[in-house]
Each structure stands twice: as structure tokens, then as C-alpha cells.
């Protein structure tokens, strides 16, 4: 365990020294999974001269997933063409090997190629090539990680997806869109007033969020590529907690236009459409989130005297209570397969990320931190992204669903919060 940590620290220090761009992202593995696949990464031929260390990005991606353990690399040039002598790799404990190359094309772009080997069976598991601009080198590395992950685990990889989050620095709030590892962040919005609750649309092109720029909370829908945005909820009182329906046609929101905080749905395909009220209570009803089949809305209500998670039919109807342990359970998030519910529970005054298996109601606490907030699932349901505080500083973390492997995304300077993990990107052929 200690040896593991030391190795990671060493790796980290080497990377920090050699590669300033990498300093934003810190792998902090705080445990060891039981069934990690041992994999080796040969340095890509030509990557010493390239702007991004492709093999290191692939390695960090796969390690962060919690399902891989990297085996120290061996010296000797390798690329995607040569069939390597797999015996020494097998002896060093690897089950798989990734080898590749990166070269500059005449038009200034880069050609990135790789091949994945099953070291044990001595089999070629396939490879790909990408001709891409320098700006897309990281994306290519994430696509390689996705390929390897899918081949070896059978699950779809999430490394080429995007996340959104909010930073606060010097009284300026910024909404960022970044790679799933927190790198390559680009600002989508800056504001002198708070921004909270960003939420990706199901096709990953728009973000709904709450902005306080008009000195009250209102809900915007923002097209990420064009920067165009429109105000979709600016009713009397507070407007907050936007959540997309899986078909992308409506938003569930919390409005206080009729008194207390209640749930409504808004048709976002028609400008200026009248919200439809979903709940009728004198309690707080907020933080709606749709199940991925669109049939249910999970939400937070204090109708029982303390905030708990409930679910009801998405068209409205009788809510049934979902959480029963503790007196403060908020911020529900559902995995795409409907198997898991992640939420924040207050335990002895500390706010901690929990996950519940919905079929059994078994609950697992995942963290040692005490100010966890706002979990969201990776689109393949194998990782959770959440905000927390470490040494009094805000941080974004990912964790596996057993809580054993965590990684910290260090992002921009200042405070960092309100993460939301975007959907799978459509992969061009």
C-alpha cells in the first residue's frame, strides 16, 4: 500500500518536473481494487518529441478507472507495427500491452497509431490510427484509452467524454468544459455572480445552469459550441435545479413562483412555454433528476420532516420514499442502467457521498471527507464525479463505486465545484 503510494508520488513528481501541463491532474489512488487487470504501456515511438505524452495520458485514464494496474514498462523501442517478443512482458506480470507511435505529418498534423496485445495469449487485439491536429492529441489519447478499456472490460470507455464544473477565483465565477480527466478546460461562461447546478443535455451539446447574474437565481440553457444561451426560467421568486428529461425536450426545475420551492417541468422546445407543476406540497421539493428510462423523477423533499430522497412518476403522482437512514439525504444521481443511486448523506455532522443499490437498498459510504457535494455518474456507470474539500480547499474527485480508487482533478486555480459528467460523445467513423 505504502509502496503503491510512493510509486504514485514518484510518478507524479517525475511528471510535474517533465511536463507542466500535467500538473493540473493528480492521481491519488487511495486503495487497491481486487480485480485490477495488469497492463503495460510501452512509450510511444516519437512521443519524446511530441507535445503530449500519449502513453502517459492513456495510462492515467486507465488507472483512474480503478480496473487497471499498470506494470512497469520495459526498455526497447516498440510501436504498433512490430510484433513484440511478449515473453518478457508476460514475465513482468502484464496481461496486456499497449504500443504505438506518434509522428508529424507534412501538413502539420500528427499521426497517432497504437496496437493492443494480449500478452498471455500472444494475440493482437487490434489497433487504430488517428490523423489529428495538435489540439486534439489529448482526445486521441482518450480514444485509445476507450478502445483498450472496451476491449478488456467489455464496458464502454468514458475517457473521451467531457465534464462541466464551476470555479470561483477573485470574485469571478466561471463555467468550464473539460476532458473527463479535468484537463484541457475551456471556459464557457464567466460572471461576477454565482453559477450553480450545471447539467448536460442528453446529447452533450447544451448546458442548463442556474445563474445569479440578475441578482436572483434564474435558469439558462447554453449552447456550448456557439456560446449562445437563452433564459428558460425567470419567474417570480427563485428558479433553480434544472434536470433534462432523457429525450432532451423538457427540463424539470424548482420554482418558487407559487410560494414554496416546488417541482415543475418546462418544455424547452417552445420558447416561453408555461411551466407545468409536478408537486403540490407545503414542503421543500427540489433537486429533481430523471431516471434514464424517463419514467421516474427522483427528488429531495422534507415532507417527512427532514430532507430525504423520493421518487415519483415523471408525469407527476404519488411520491414514494427511497432513503430511510439518517436525517439529511440530498443530491440524488442515477446510473444509466438504473442500478445505482448516488447521494449525499449527513453523518454526524459530515456530508458524505453514498451509493445505494436500488434493488436491495444496500448503502455504501464511499469517502473519508466531510463536505462532499453534487455527485454525478460517468455515462458507463462505473465512476462517480463529485465535489469535496481537502485541506480546506475545494476539489473535484472521481471514485469507483466501491470507494477504493479515487483520483483528484485539480482543474483551474481557486475554488472548484459543481461538477457534472457529460454523456457519451458520438464517435465519428
Amino acid at each position, binding site marked *: 500500500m505504502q509502496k503503491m503510494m510512493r510509486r504514485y508520488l514518484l510518478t507524479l513528481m517525475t511528471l510535474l518536473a517533465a511536463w507542466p501541463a500535467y500538473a493540473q491532474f493528480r492521481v491519488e489512488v487511495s486503495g487497491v481494487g481486487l480485480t485490477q487487470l495488469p497492463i503495460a504501456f510501452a512509450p510511444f515511438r516519437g512521443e519524446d518529441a511530441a507535445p503530449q505524452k500519449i502513453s502517459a495520458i492513456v495510462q492515467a485514464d486507465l488507472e483512474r478507472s480503478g480496473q487497471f494496474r499498470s506494470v512497469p514498462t520495459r526498455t526497447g523501442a516498440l510501436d*504498433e507495427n512490430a510484433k513484440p517478443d511478449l515473453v518478457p512482458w508476460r514475465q513482468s506480470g502484464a496481461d496486456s500491452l499497449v504500443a504505438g507511435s506518434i509522428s508529424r505529418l507534412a*501538413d502539420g*498534423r500528427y*499521426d497517432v*497509431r497504437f*496496437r493492443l496485445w494480449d500478452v498471455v495469449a500472444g494475440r493482437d487485439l*487490434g*489497433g*487504430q*490510427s*488517428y*490523423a489529428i*491536429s495538435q*489540439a*486534439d492529441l489529448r*482526445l486521441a489519447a482518450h480514444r485509445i484509452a476507450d478502445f483498450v478499456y472496451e476491449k478488456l472490460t467489455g464496458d464502454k470507455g468514458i475517457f473521451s467524454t467531457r465534464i462541466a464544473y464551476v470555479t470561483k477565483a477573485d470574485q469571478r465565477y466561471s463555467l468550464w*468544459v473539460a476532458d473527463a480527466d479535468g484537463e484541457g478546460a*475551456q*471556459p*464557457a*461562461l*464567466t460572471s*461576477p*455572480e*454565482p453559477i*450553480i*447546478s450545471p447539467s448536460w443535455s442528453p446529447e452533450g*451539446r447544451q448546458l442548463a445552469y*442556474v*445563474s*445569479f*447574474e440578475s*441578482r*436572483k*437565481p434564474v435558469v439558462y440553457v*447554453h449552447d*456550448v*459550441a*456557439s*456560446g449562445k444561451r437563452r433564459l428558460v426560467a425567470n419567474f417570480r*421568486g*427563485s428558479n*433553480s*435545479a434544472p434536470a433534462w428529461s432523457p429525450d432532451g425536450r423538457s427540463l424539470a426545475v*424548482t420554482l418558487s413562483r407559487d410560494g414554496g*420551492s416546488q417541482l415543475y417541468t418546462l418544455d424547452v422546445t417552445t420558447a416561453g412555454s408555461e411551466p407545468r407543476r409536478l408537486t403540490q406540497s407545503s414542503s*421543500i421539493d*427540489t*433537486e429533481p433528476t430523471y431516471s434514464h428510462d424517463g419514467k421516474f423523477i427522483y427528488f*429531495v423533499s422534507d415532507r417527512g420532516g427532514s*430532507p430525504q430522497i423520493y421518487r415519483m412518476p415523471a408525469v407527476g403522482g404519488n411520491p414514494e420514499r427511497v432513503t430511510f437512514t439518517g436525517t*439529511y439525504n440530498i*443530491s440524488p444521481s442515477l446510473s444509466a442502467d438504473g442500478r445505482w443511486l448516488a447521494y449525499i448523506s449527513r453523518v454526524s455532522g459530515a*456530508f458524505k457521498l453514498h451509493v445505494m443499490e436500488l434493488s436491495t437498498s444496500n448503502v455504501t459510504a464511499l469517502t473519508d471527507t466531510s463536505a462532499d457535494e453534487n455527485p454525478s455518474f460517468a455515462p458507463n456507470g462505473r465512476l462517480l464525479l463529485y465535489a469535496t474539500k481537502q485541506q*480546506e480547499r475545494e476539489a473535484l474527485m472521481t471514485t469507483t463505486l466501491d470507494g477504493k480508487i479515487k483520483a483528484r482533478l485539480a482543474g483551474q486555480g481557486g475554488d472548484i*465545484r459543481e461538477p457534472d459528467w457529460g454523456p457519451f*460523445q*458520438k464517435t*465519428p*467513423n
Partner: protein
Amino acid sequence: MSMKKLALIGAVTLLVAGCSSVNLDNPPVDDRSSGGAAAGSGDSVVAKTAVTPVDDGKSSQAAIANVSRLVYFDYDSYVIKPEFQALIDAHARHIKADKSRKVVIEGHTDERGGREYNLALGQRRAEAVRRSLGLLGVADSQVEAVSFGKEKPVAQGSNEAAWSKNRRAEISYR
């Protein structure tokens, strides 16, 4: 503006050139990804939008001198304590005296707990003050209750001294 447009066009161009992959399974490898035939989905382009600050009307002359605009609350409570009743009475008289006066009651919480749930708790505090004003005869059309949740603390620090200052509703004349 034109710079932004240029940057966007540049980014789109790069993207069109990028992002496509060729399977290496059937050599010889032939690079089909050049020439922009396989257009990118536009997914890695992010345009930046900046919000300009709105005028902060907190020093509005409509406010009453020498009367506090702050009502403080206990933890997890939206009950208006008796010591704040006189303050609310004074504001009620002042608002009623001029039907053109508009106030926004801004509810706030301390830093503990989730942002959205705190927004709802702050809303409850703001609504409690709004209802008190209503009971004193202030027209509903003159008062709006909104919440900032835990987003706008006046006191920094993770201790009761700071928290008790942040659990508040502000009567803001607009």
C-alpha cells in the same frame, strides 16, 4: 467579436480535420482521416461568453435610515425570532407608505450542506419575511422573495460565529 469568430472558425476547422480514426486491423493502413471527409461533431468546441455585472442597487435611497435590513435565523430554522419583529414592522410601514416602492427579500444560509437544498432553505427564510410583511398589510406586488442559498456569505470561516451571520434574510430595496 470578430476575433472570437475567427477563433471559433479556427477551432471548427481543426475539429473537422481531427477526431476520425482508422482501424488498424486490416493492413495496409490507409489514412482516410485526412481531407475532412469525416467531419467532427463539433463536440470539442467551446465558445466563451462573458456576463457583465448588473447594477447593484443596494444603496437605494428608498431604504430607511437607521433601520437594519437584516433578519437572522437559527440553524435549520426559518422562524422569525421576536427580536426582529420591530424591524419588520418599520419596513412594512415604510413600504406601504409608497406603493411604488419595491423590495426583494433575499434569503441566505450558512455553508453547510448542498447548494440546491440550501437555496430552498434560503427561499423559506425569504418567504417567512415576505409573509410577515404581508400580514402587516404590505401588497404582494411590492415584495418578491428570492434565495441565494449559501452562495453569498457575508462572513468567512467554518465556525458558528460566521455561520450565524450568514443565516439571514436581507430586505433589499430596488
